[in-house]
């Protein structure tokens, strides 16, 4: 269980890195399409799934960031981590898993909504919160690792 906890926690940290890469890829691709091919972005094309007629592969960056990874994989992994934490017996593991779950809800649902409804400035918090989430996930993974090491070094009970 502790190993599973460790894998899931570090997995979430890795998925945050994927998120950062995907969104940067997408926006550079978009900028290149506008610069080189005269792509025009407007509401009509944003609301279609045509990729605004650009057909650029970096569009996958948006799909990964905003759908596959961002709203499915990371929230699901954080939920599974929370459940595993109940069984794993990692010291402070439940608190860390609950904290990760809360940060994911903030990151994937609350901050994007505030960025659209209240002001784009919340987008900056979305970026900052990603780093916090990654840090907490790494710490959780390290705690599980430490617990496993401690367990292995204990003498077997006769």
């Amino acid at each position: 269980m502790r190993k599973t906890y460790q894998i899931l926690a570090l997995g979430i940290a890795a998925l945050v890195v994927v998120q950062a890469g995907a969104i940067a890829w997408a926006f550079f691709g978009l900028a290149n399409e506008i610069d080189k091919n005269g792509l025009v972005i407007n509401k009509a094309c944003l609301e279609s799934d045509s990729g605004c007629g650009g057909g650029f592969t970096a569009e996958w960056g948006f799909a990964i960031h905003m759908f596959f990874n961002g709203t499915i994989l990371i929230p699901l992994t954080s939920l599974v981590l929370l459940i595993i934490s109940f069984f794993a017996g990692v010291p402070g593991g439940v608190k860390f898993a609950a904290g990760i779950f809360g940060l994911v809800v903030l990151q994937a649902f609350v901050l994007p909504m505030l960025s659209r409804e209240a002001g784009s400035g919340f987008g900056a918090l979305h970026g900052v919160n990603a780093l916090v989430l990654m840090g907490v996930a790494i710490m959780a993974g390290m705690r599980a690792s430490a617990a496993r090491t401690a367990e292995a070094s204990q003498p077997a009970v006769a």
Partner: protein
Amino acid sequence: MPSQTRRRLWLAAAATAVVVLPLGWFWQASLLPDTYDLAAMGYPDYGGGPRPAAGDHTGHDGHPGTPVAELTADPDRRADESFTLRVHDDGDGYTVNGTSPGPVLDVTQGDLVEVTLVNENIEDGTTLHWHGVDVPNAADGVAGVTQDAVGPGEQLAYRFVADQVGTFWYHSHQVSHEQVRQGLFGALVIHPAEPDAEVLERVAVLHEYDDGPTLNGRAGVETVDAEAGQRVRLRVVNTDNGLSKVWVTGAAYEVLAVDGTDLNQPGPVEGDAVGVPAGGRVDLGLVVPEGGVRVDFGGTTSMVFGADPTGGGQTIAPDDFVDLLSYGEPADLGFDPAQADRTFDYRIGKRPGFLDGRPGMWWTVNGHLFPDLPMFMVSEGDVVVFRIENNSDDAHPMHLHGHHAVVLSRDGEPATGSPWWVDSLEVRTGESYEIAFLADNPGIWMDHCHNLPHAAQGLVAHLMYDGVSSSYRIGGTPGNEPE
């Protein structure tokens, strides 16, 4: 197993149950049955007006009344104009009589129009909805509400009187978020019996296909031969899911009509764009100057009359839109919105939850998720006011079937211009609108977001008349799936 370990396992199992069971319960509760009567959906909202007197039913379905299927145009009247539209699935899109957009249907005011829809091979079935035309309910073309989807090899005739001059369009209302986007639509223009022969008329149907944005089915620039001094009426139809920004270079223009209704005493516009909501139409009036005039649609396609005044260059979209709240001059509405019989709230929000078992962030109406939405109940002859409020994170082009509503105010600011009649109203994030209409077309009518994926995500409520009963069901053998 030591008792401490056992206790810890029990605690862990209990904590897991606390997390998983509510999720499972919400998931299970959100599952839709395979087939259901839409009139039984959600809860009745009487808008502060009287409840129907007929019977002692407590709900809003299952009571006797005129079936939707009987709310037709005069069956004894012969059609004045007949069309056949054959729709086809080409594998990578849909066509109507071999093209997309389908043919422009030009009809004359007052005529009884009969259109036969032939579904050549669309597996999901299909329908035709007459967007903006206040047709009899049975001709509204909404699968599972006003008809069964027309299966492959089948056909169905729509009959209605073209009683209002203006620019409209037709499109599928079966799996509409896919069928419309992939091409199953076309324009409908209702002309006056004696049109002004001096005016050059053109239709501009805007649509985003897989390959990108188009104007009348083609990318780029469409050039129309026109002499200087030629008067033009340009009928813009936005068949997409988002607002289209339209602007004119080389001449001033007037917004002659919105959603098929002429504006009263429109004034010249220079430097501002006009916004055409998803599903909406705008008629622009202009006079071709020496040197020509160009109309840009969202910066992607354009129509040039005479020469291109930019010499084929690019234009910059204006920052501002014509504000229809104060454009033109006031005129009589034909009814008094201050004497409303019913006032409904249509507050749009968004929250996490399950939609037919799918987890996600979904649209809400008055705080409720689909299908637990209000059924707006009215009686024929009622003056009805809707307060639409958008508290969600995206714009919503709200489309009421079967009626035209007049805008009373936006964010509390009263309308001071020409009566602004709409069937497709752009409600941006944070905005609120008050609109009013006369309930004069009995039936069960959709009142939904015309960003069609939003409708498929549950942003669809209905208006239902007292004394009307449903004739069709969602799902079932025809596979009715209107959104």
